[in-house]
């Protein structure tokens, strides 16, 4: 490592309204090495890579390529400088062929006008053969598996003679077998002298593929260490960090009867891939069950399948003894009595152009007292909203004001008010405090504990480990669509972090 780094990042700072996504980040990438960038969701990994690829402009700091400072105004500049990037969401055109996708923007032509398909296909074929990619250049992208599509993305970078390859959470969309193939390819590329930045939050992968690892936490690089000699426990500790726990006062739970039972549930994501793979869990009256896990491990699909918002493939959902498999969203809220605080409050939880009163009536507008025989009584909506606004301390709006004018915390209170006031047996809270300020977080937490004590079964999903640890009475860890472990709240963060990163399962290496 005596040689100068091929890529050097010095003091990169990138701010977005309200947060500092990258805070004076320093990074060095050497020739022919794999550098892993490890961090939790929201640690600033993707922002940093978008800065490197010219998609964002850094507010401070500089990038040096082979010792010379460079400025990227667009991804075109980055590509020109020999940087290739494989985005988390592939930048591929489904209805075009592999060859077309790869040469796009830098096409071989005959006489300068006509596109030379033969030469494009040949060059792609050569490239693919060089690296043992099993890819037919004439295939249409939408006929390929996700793993193959990813290889096309890599070929795209190789075609543009990239010397530095950035992969943004490349295994997030892959099956374990595909991930093994990807690692083989990456080693091969490394052997050819390519320098690779590998973004991940999965510890075992990082140890498997990387030479060195830089750990990012809250926008800062906490440490950069060689993977040789590093352990999953050590990395997990670095990644999660020591933080002040938000303490929530609560009595020990006294669980009653089982109210929510999920049995061997399978569900697909919107790309048709299996996202929930045989999840079984129970939640009893008077307890909070927390689902811990890294983002994109099937949590959202699990909740959609339970709430009837997405069809499940197989399995059972039983609420208070009633079979609810494949029930409609309305049957789940009205008949089964499931309350749902959705993950994305602005896209799903609220109609932002509706008034607060209308949002509160979003489930119940069809029933008395809100309406009778199809006739709506807005006065009653307003009256109900008025009392709930008071009870849940919603500030910044009257029952008549648009939900969109409220702050995030108050929007969440409106949702909470709606879901809790319906007296649900089961309350599902998905990331209930995401993006909220401390006061609002405290309010939500207190309210959830309060509802637990009133005998509701609460299923809490969060990406914040502290939240799970401070609220849940039992903790389930989800990884790649499976529940991989059950813990008590006394479990250490390291233990949990390890399980969340797939550390305790061996399936991944298979």
């Amino acid at each position, binding site marked *: 490592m005596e040689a100068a780094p091929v890529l050097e990042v010095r003091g990169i700072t990138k701010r977005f309204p309200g947060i500092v996504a990258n805070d004076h980040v320093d990074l060095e990438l050497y020739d022919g090495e794999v550098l892993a960038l490890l961090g939790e969701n929201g640690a600033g990994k993707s922002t940093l890579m*978008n800065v490197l*690829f010219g*998609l*964002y402009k850094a507010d401070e700091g500089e990038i040096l390529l082979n010792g010379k400072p460079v400025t990227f105004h*667009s*991804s*075109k500049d980055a*590509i020109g400088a020999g940087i290739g*990037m494989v*985005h988390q969401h592939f*930048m*591929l*055109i*489904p*209805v*075009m062929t592999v060859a*077309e*996708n790869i*040469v*796009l*923007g*830098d*096409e071989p*032509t005959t006489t300068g*006008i*006509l*596109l030379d398909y033969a030469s494009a296909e040949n060059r792609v074929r050569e490239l693919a053969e060089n690296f043992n990619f099993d890819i037919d250049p004439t295939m249409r992208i939408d006929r390929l598996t996700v793993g193959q599509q990813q290889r096309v993305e890599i070929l*795209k970078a190789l075609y543009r003679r990239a010397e530095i390859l950035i992969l943004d959470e490349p295994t997030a969309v892959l099956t374990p077998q595909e991930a093994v193939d990807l690692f083989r390819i990456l080693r091969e590329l490394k052997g050819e002298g390519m320098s690779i930045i590998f973004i991940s939050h999965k510890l075992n992968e990082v140890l498997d593929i990387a030479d060195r690892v830089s750990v990012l936490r809250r926008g800062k690089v906490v440490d950069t260490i060689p993977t040789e000699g590093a352990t999953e426990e050590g990395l997990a500790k670095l990644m999660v960090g020591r933080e002040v726990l938000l303490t929530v006062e609560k009595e020990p739970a006294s669980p009653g009867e089982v109210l929510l039972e999920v049995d061997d549930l399978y569900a697909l994501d919107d790309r048709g891939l299996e996202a929930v793979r045989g999840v079984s869990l129970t939640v009893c009256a008077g307890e909070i069950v927390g689902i811990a896990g890294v983002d994109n491990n099937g949590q959202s699909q699990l909740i959609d399948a339970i709430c009837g918002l997405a069809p499940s493939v197989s399995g059972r959902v039983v609420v208070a003894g009633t079979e609810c498999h494949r029930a409609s969203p309305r049957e789940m809220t009205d008949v089964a009595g499931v309350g749902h605080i959705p993950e994305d409050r602005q896209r799903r939880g609220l109609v932002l152009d509706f008034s607060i009163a209308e949002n509160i009536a979003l489930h119940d507008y069809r029933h008395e007292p809100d309406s009778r025989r199809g006739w709506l009584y807005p006065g009653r909506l307003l009256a109900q909203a008025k009392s709930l606004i008071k009870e849940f301390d919603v500030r910044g709006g009257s029952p008549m004001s648009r939900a969109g004018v409220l702050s995030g915390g108050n929007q969440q209170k409106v949702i909470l008010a709606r879901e809790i006031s319906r007296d649900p047996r089961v309350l599902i809270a998905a990331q209930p405090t995401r993006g909220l300020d401390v006061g609002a977080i405290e309010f939500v937490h207190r309210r959830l504990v309060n509802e637990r004590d009133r005998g509701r079964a609460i299923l809490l999903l969060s990406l914040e480990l502290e939240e799970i640890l401070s609220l849940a009475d039992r903790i389930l860890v989800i990884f790649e669509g499976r529940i991989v472990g059950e813990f008590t709240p006394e479990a250490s963060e390291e233990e949990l972090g390890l399980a969340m990163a797939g550390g305790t399962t061996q399936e991944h290496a298979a």
Partner: protein
Amino acid sequence: MTAIAVQRLRSDRTVPIVGIALGILAFWLTLPPVASRSWAVPVLLGIVAVLTGIVGITHGKLRLGWGAVASGLLGIILGLLALQSGVNHLKLVFSWGGLIAATLVYATPLTYAALGGMFSERAGVVNIALEGMMLVGAFFGIWGAVTTGNWILGLLIGMGMGGVFALVHAIWAIHLRADQIVGGTAINFLALGITGYFFIQIYGNNGTPDLSNGHWFRGESIPDVHIPGLQGGGFFDQVLGGLNLMIWLSFAALILSYVVLFKTSLGLRLRAVGEHPRAADTVGIDVYRTRYVAVIVSGMLAAMGGAYLSIGFVHSFNQNMTEGRGFIALAALIFGKWRPFGAFAAALLFGFSSALATQVPAAYTDSSVSVLSSGSLFQILPYVLTLIAVAGVIGRSIGPAAAGRPYVKQ
């Protein structure tokens, strides 16, 4: 083993394809020159066609199978209808040479506009303003030709004005990110108003003056091309002998559009922008510029279709003279699945139904079949077929993925 599989596949497809052909034959045999007068001919052939369709469907060839069933049933119905008319009348209508020439005449404005629409929509900008852009081309084409005394300049002026209107649509769609349907609707209103206003202002109630005959490089109207050796009364003479120059040019425009869109890097980039602008952006393609160019080209092509109407075909201008042809062109584009030859085939089909609409009533003036004594129902065909196509009953039409969505740079 693969050879057998291929053969099986082929035979599965053959049966319904034969069926479709039989359905057409059922109708054709009742028309001149054969003009069979027996009801048994279309009925029997039609039934066989339906049966082949059923065979096709049971072998999993749903699309072709249903096509054969439809073809068989239509063959029976149309054949029986033809029997209602006298042979002499039928001969009048189905003088095939004349009918095909008329089809080409009606199809040409559609072809230009549909090709125009293809550029715009393939780049991701929905263009329901084809109607307005055609109208602009029609008016400013004739205005230019009369003012300069030269049809070439007239055509160029018409195209230029079509491009200007398209530019407005582009600014609204791309930079202002206005709803593309609203923008297109506005352009249609504006085109109708502005062409009507200037038509009255300039030409008053007398209408546009008579155009002088066109020759290759002079004259006010676009010339017909009289091909030496094809001036007799035979079939090919009727079809190809005296087509307008713009019809021949439309073939060139068709081929050129195909080559540009599918054989050049420009076309690849344009289509990429319409499918996945962000992917195009990440490899350094200027999404906005590509869209501007595509929409302006779209307006110019649509205007060519309009100019053909005014200075190539009708030789005058009337208010709202396009009469919805822009929307038929849109239909042709969708029916042809946003592909040049598909859109051209649809334009021919729709042109054929227009040609029939003007000629069929003659065959039924003394008949009791009132459906056919007016050509109106033939005018409906393009719209019904397109409705069926967008609903996906027969081969779903799905447009470019990003059409209608404004692109926001990161």
